[in-house]
């Protein structure tokens, strides 16, 4: 459209451009710069070459964190790609009261990860609901160390992530199911296809692209996990700090006297490298869809 003064559009975009430069482009560039220095929260900032990356190769905590990330991703991927689809099919039909159920299923999504982790920390506590109930039933003699065992803590965090994510991906699928043509379902039903058959031959192909989108989103968010592990382990990263995620390590080195901003930046680049694969896949899908 026309406008009388040449600078009008620039006035309109100016604030967003300032934010683009100061809080997006500059920090990206600066992360790379910092990664090659020994910058500390207090002082430092000399060029140290590849020292931070050499340190990263040697860092057993980072190795643990990467293993945790992979486990996290491998467990979340199938669960959060399939369960929300089934849930979306369950809430798709407009039965009386369905809005209530949809809203309720979405509630864990709008709650803060901190709140959810504190609630689960209490439920999974040595003397919490799950252990109390299991002992009352006599299933276990001693409390299960959900929050103090290296692997159980990780799996507790994973189940929390899955539980909190169900509603989010359900909504994405619900939106996609609206586009699956109803005639296909009806034709299949007339041909005598049962519900399971229709699921695999009509629904799944119909939401194939959405399933790919969801699996990319699930992978990336599994690699970015922070709050669940931080709160469940009370900031310690579990026994021996072995239940850290990459983001927890970044947070650890950003703050305090033991802080090392240069090393934290190098870890940020490691995080970027492991998330870029799924992200690029997402961009390609986006272009295909458009």
């Amino acid at each position, binding site marked *: 459209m026309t406008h*009388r003064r040449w600078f009008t559009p620039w006035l*309109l975009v100016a604030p967003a451009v300032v*934010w683009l430069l100061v809080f997006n482009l500059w920090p990206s560039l*600066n992360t790379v710069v910092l990664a090659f220095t020994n910058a500390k929260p207090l002082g430092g900032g000399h060029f140290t070459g590849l020292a931070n990356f050499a340190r990263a190769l040697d860092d057993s905590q980072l190795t643990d964190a990467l293993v945790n990330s992979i486990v996290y991703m491998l467990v979340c991927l199938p669960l959060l790609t399939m369960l929300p689809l089934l849930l979306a099919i369950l809430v798709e*039909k407009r039965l009386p009261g369905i809005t209530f159920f949809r809203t309720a299923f979405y509630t864990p999504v709008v709650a803060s*990860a901190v709140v959810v982790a504190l609630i689960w920390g209490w439920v999974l506590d040595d003397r919490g609901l799950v252990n109390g109930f299991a002992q009352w039933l006599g299933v276990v003699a001693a409390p299960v160390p959900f929050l103090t065992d290296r692997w159980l803590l990780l799996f507790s965090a994973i189940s929390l992530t899955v539980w909190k994510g169900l509603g989010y991906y359900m909504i994405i699928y619900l939106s996609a199911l609206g586009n699956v043509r109803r005639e296909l379902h009806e034709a299949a039903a007339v041909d005598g296809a049962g519900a399971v058959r229709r699921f695999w031959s009509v629904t799944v192909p119909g939401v194939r692209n959405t399933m790919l989108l969801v699996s990319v989103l699930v992978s990336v968010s599994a690699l970015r996990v922070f709050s669940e592990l931080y709160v469940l382990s009370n900031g310690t990263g579990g026994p021996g700090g072995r239940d850290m995620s990459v983001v927890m390590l970044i947070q650890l080195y950003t703050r305090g006297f033991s802080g090392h901003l240069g090393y934290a930046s190098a870890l940020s680049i490691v995080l970027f490298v492991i998330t870029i694969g799924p992200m690029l896949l997402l961009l390609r899908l986006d272009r295909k869809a458009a």
Partner: protein
Amino acid sequence: MAAHAKRVRPGGLAAAGPAEKALRYALLLLVLALTVSPFLWQLSTSLKSLTEDVYSRTPTFLPEHPTLDNYAQVADAIPVWSYAANSLVVAAIVITGNVIGATMAGYALARLRFRGAKLLLGLFLATLVLPGEVTIVSQYVTVRSLGLADTLLGVALPGAIAMLNVLLMRTAFAAIPQEMDEAAVIDGATAWQRLRHIGLPNVRGMLSVITIFTFIGAWDDFLWPLIVLTDPDHYTLTVGLQYLNGTFTSNPRLIAAGTMISFVPIVVVFAALQRYFFRGVEEGAIKG
């Protein structure tokens, strides 16, 4: 018209038989129990008095003598109400910034022709590939060099114009028919007048979605305020709750009361506005 037809669409297959209906409701109730029972358990814990054993092996969902004492006591342990106020201040700054900044930029990108528009759009899009956690260290360095470390403004500022929201507003403005603008131009309307009188009335839906999600995002955020804030007096509610958890773990009733103070407002906001949210979903407006 088309949107209206979609809204009354029954969804799924034709009318369900009684057996299918019963099965569906049974499954719905099962999932409901799995989703809401942890919240209810926490609510129940927060209402239990000190004399009631919260560790009991035969858990009771209903408190014997419901009391609000824990809510008063959590305020003695940590300044929970001023933490909530801090979270509100951050949310208010972030919402104001996004509503104004993203509207202006989205409008210019969608409705005005100018040099460099394509390049700008590409840059806005490119930022989406980068997870926020990747730049959080240098983000902190920036905020600190602006003298905003350990301040609420420092927490709010980087997210005050989110690139995603600029793109969402651009999409919303782009959906307005071109003819409306053309007619206004003939009538001599300036770009600002067209934004006010033609643009804004047509993007209210997107603005409310952005407002809801910006509020939820700011209220729930944990990692960034945890990095920026050091003085316990400045904490936002999420950081304060983790602080409470680290310091006073001996009494789960207090932590339960604290989590409810954070959880209830967000649920009320969401429950009040869920109509708009789910309407958008059914019209296929929300994708990824």
